[in-house]
């Protein structure tokens, strides 16, 4: 875990409730230590994920986004992850064109019983994102002061 020591990066996880969220719970119950960067958004199904959530996250300055759902054919809603797989594969073509390194986004399948697998997914993805460092922030493109929104300051603890 040496790579991820020190500065945390902003990593968002979109997880389906039935498999991967439960898998992350299983990892917790098993006390499988993980890097702390990841923040999980719980969704009913990966089929709920509009790829634009991921684009939005990167636009907002996320350093990495991880999607995880039920293994193909195990979807609680039978087909959600099949649609998700196609949508997310398509998304993979968009991200590098707008300047998001493909390594900042991954999707995978983790079942409710795969606590160990969840741990290793989180650990390797976090490491992968740390290897890429912070995502460059969007700034105002020009010196036009005509139209700039003052950046709303992020919260500080």
């Amino acid at each position, binding site marked *: 875990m040496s790579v991820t020591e020190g500065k*945390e990066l*902003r990593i*968002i996880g979109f997880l389906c*409730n*039935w*498999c991967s*969220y*439960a898998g*992350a*719970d299983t*990892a*917790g*119950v098993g*006390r*499988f*230590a*993980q*890097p*702390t960067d990841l*923040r*999980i*958004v*719980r*969704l*009913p*199904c990966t*089929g*709920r*994920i*509009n*790829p634009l*959530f991921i684009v*939005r*996250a990167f636009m*907002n*300055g*996320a350093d990495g986004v991880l999607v995880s759902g*039920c293994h193909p*054919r*195990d*979807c*609680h*809603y*039978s*087909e*959600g992850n099949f*649609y998700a797989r196609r*949508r997310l594969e398509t998304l993979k073509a968009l991200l590098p064109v707008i300047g998001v390194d493909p390594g900042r986004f991954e999707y995978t399948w983790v*079942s*409710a*019983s*795969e606590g160990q697998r969840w*741990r290793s997914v989180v650990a390797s993805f976090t490491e992968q994102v740390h290897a890429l460092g912070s995502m460059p922030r969007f700034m105002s493109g020009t010196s036009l002061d005509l139209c700039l929104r003052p950046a*709303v300051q*992020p*919260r500080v*603890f």
Partner: protein
Amino acid sequence: MNIGVFVCHCGSNIAGTVDTEAVAKAALEYREVVFATDAMYACSEPGQAGIVEAIGTYALDGVVVASCTPRMHEATFRRTLERAGLNRYMFEMANIREHVSWVGKDKAANTRKAAELVHMAVEKLRRNERLQAGEFDIAKRVMVIGGGVAGIQAALDCADGGLEVVLVEREPSIGGKMSKLDKTFPTVDCSSCILGPKMVDVAQHPNITLYALSEVDSVDGFVGNFNVTVRRKAAYVDWDACTGCGECAAKCPSKKTPDRFNEFIGLTTAINIPFPQAIPKKASINANACIKLTKGKCGACAKVCPTGAIRFDQKDELVTEKVGAIIAATGYDLFDFTKYGEYGGGRYPDVITAMQYERLLSASGPTEGHIRRPSDGAEPRDIVFIQCVGSRDKSIGRPYCTGFCCMYTAKQTILTKDHMPDSQSYVFYMDIRSPGKNYDEFTRRAMEEYGAKYIRGRVSAIQPKNGRYLVKGADTLLGRQVEIEADLVVLAVGAEAARGAGELAEKLRISYDPYGFFLEGHPKLKPVETNTAGVYLAGSCQGPKDIPSSVAQGGAAAAKALSLLSKDKLASDPQVSGVKLARCIGCGKCESVCPFGAIEMIEFRGMPKASIIETVCQGCGVCTAACPQGAAQLRHFTDNQILAEVNALCL
């Protein structure tokens, strides 16, 4: 909106690695949070009372609890809100235990993470709606899949409780593995004597419809309203006409068919009734062995059948049953020991499985209860039992302990001595696992009273020698090699998931573990539930089990189904999709992707629009992600709610 935040210590589970006080303090700064506190156990009686009190004192309209996973206590806290007069959906949970305190070591980082998870929850809650549950009608019927002892128990309990039960069994008779056993441990009472009456009860129960020789073809629908299509495989016999007299089997010329019920150590006829106590006691034809069906000639059975029940042209038949709940009790299969080359890989006729040995011991088995070697029919004297064949062995992908082999091996050594007082049993074992009532005493008796020689170690090879078998192994307690010449070797093969378990799980939309055993809702608290509402588990399909546990679980699953279907209507989950007609342009994309056919296109003021059938919608949100206008929105997981969480995390 007035939001209250409650940060749970969970004793030291959370507070040990998260500064809960700091999290509560941070939460006070969030928009619309008017109250925040930390609590020792939020889910406890005083914890919940504290929430109810704060709702009153601070006029809260929404609550965030930061504690364990919502999969644990979301329902608990929603009820708390309802007690305080709030809508149950004005609630969010931040999972700071499973996702934070239990997996992160750095307290500062954990605290930061917990506070951000609370922030996400607050921002989502600010956009929550007061959803109201509807109601829908349910079918007061249960389907039990699998007619082993667990399924039989579940079916009988449900039927006695007044539910209509459809019991589906893959084999021609119910009874499962237990019906093949000679005796049961630790009482050594006759297996068919205690199972037989239950099987007869199934046959005679007015509330039970039995489909033997049938399999589940497809499942759709949802809790309360499943539609299960069952494939009734062709028996080539009209079971309504068949009286089970057995004339057909007596006259069948194809007498060399390996007997499936007898684990292929005996022979039977192409048309047969699998065993005398079979339920239903009906004949069926093995199409691969039948001369008429394979070569077109014969038809002896049809000639002798007194009721003219033979139907060589019978085809599989599909029937659809509407049920409100499903109990999966599909049991287990035996490990295929031929993967172990050192035990001969199936080449030696006198190296057999414990289940085959059980058939040899059984008075209704192929040898009528006389122990005979399959190779030459001789009575064996020295018998070696090898434990853990397909259990606790990572190298063949079976790392788990089957759990009941130690016991049945002990039973078999006892029965062996009873049958043949001059015999000697040897047991190669890894450890003895006998943690049940009277179990350890039982294994002790096998060793001490019945003289079974237990050798702690593995067998490295079995080699034929002068018509016997040289069993080479290690005695790890004495630290030396041992070689035993045996007449018969019995392998304690482990249990593995039933053939086709994965496919059935996919049809039922339940999870299964890497070995194919179905996954329970919670390992401790929901041992017979699954993640799919209305689907329950009984017996070894959830993991290897002995008979008492299977029976107990069958009863437990039945109790769950009975309590579910005790109501006339079920509350529908309001977390379903809804279409904003003003935004919808009727492009039909949502309709095309809905996995449940829950979207229909309607005409509204002359314009095409999508409309959700709320009782059919399962709330997956595939439509919401497909709708370009954002007109279809999954309630409680709307675009704006998820965007709010994303924005709370990074902007």
